[in-house]
């Protein structure tokens, strides 16, 4: 079984550890572990594209929770906007629905993980933990359906950065830029 699947199974195990009187420690660790399961699933899928297997773990260290969450927000927002235009039913829409499930589960998991790890003012209950694990489980299933789709692969790449890469504009030599700036200054009348 792959590491992310092991983590998800562990999360379920932690959630069931004390069924009669659930402990906050095991409930919180269950939430956190489910979150890590999804985090590692996406990273392992992204790094699996790297041709040299021995470097995949190092590449995986380039991923950052915060950037991945922001990229997921962007993806959810893009898909929601596209759905507002009533796209036709079909494979493309189905893939987008699955992808939104994954991105949304990642956002929710991150928020819950943060709460589970650091917010001691909040008491966790088995239903809250079950919701988190079920949502990550659903994301795993959704990912399995779309993992080879182009948009799913593009989403993995977007998790590395929040910046959209634009085509590089040709750079003018420094002296030319300076001359241009001086010309502009001369053309602009000083304001009183």
């Amino acid at each position, binding site marked *: 079984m792959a590491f992310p699947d092991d983590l998800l199974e562990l999360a379920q195990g932690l959630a069931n550890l004390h069924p009669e009187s659930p402990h906050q420690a095991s409930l919180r660790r269950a939430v956190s572990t489910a979150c890590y399961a999804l985090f590692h699933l996406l990273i392992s899928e992204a790094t699996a594209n790297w041709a040299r297997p021995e470097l995949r773990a190092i590449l995986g260290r380039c991923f950052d929770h915060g950037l991945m969450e922001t990229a997921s*927000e962007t993806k*959810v*927002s893009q898909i*929601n*906007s596209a759905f507002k235009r009533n796209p036709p039913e079909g494979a493309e829409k189905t893939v987008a629905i699955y992808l939104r499930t994954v991105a949304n589960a990642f*956002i*929710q998991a991150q*928020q*819950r993980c943060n709460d589970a790890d650091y917010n001691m003012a909040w*008491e966790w*209950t*088995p*239903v*809250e933990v*079950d*919701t988190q694990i*079920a*949502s990550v*489980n*659903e994301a795993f299933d959704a990912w399995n359906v779309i993992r080879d789709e182009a948009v799913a692969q593009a989403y993995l790449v977007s998790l590395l950065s929040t910046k959209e890469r634009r085509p590089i504009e040709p750079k003018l030599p420094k002296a030319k830029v300076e001359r241009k700036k001086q010309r502009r200054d001369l053309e602009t009348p000083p304001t009183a």
Partner: protein
Amino acid sequence: MVILEDAATRRDQLLHISNQVSQAIVEQVQPLEQWDVLPYFKFRSRSEQAKLNQPTFA
């Protein structure tokens, strides 16, 4: 915080119900598109909430 009837929190239907509730709220409020904030849902059963005796806001 969403409080669900105990019967609705069975494991085999929890995901379906929690998805329905959150989707309905997201469609109405559009938190990301209209407010630039992320929705964050927590679900508890009625009996869990009664046991914890924490305040609810809605």
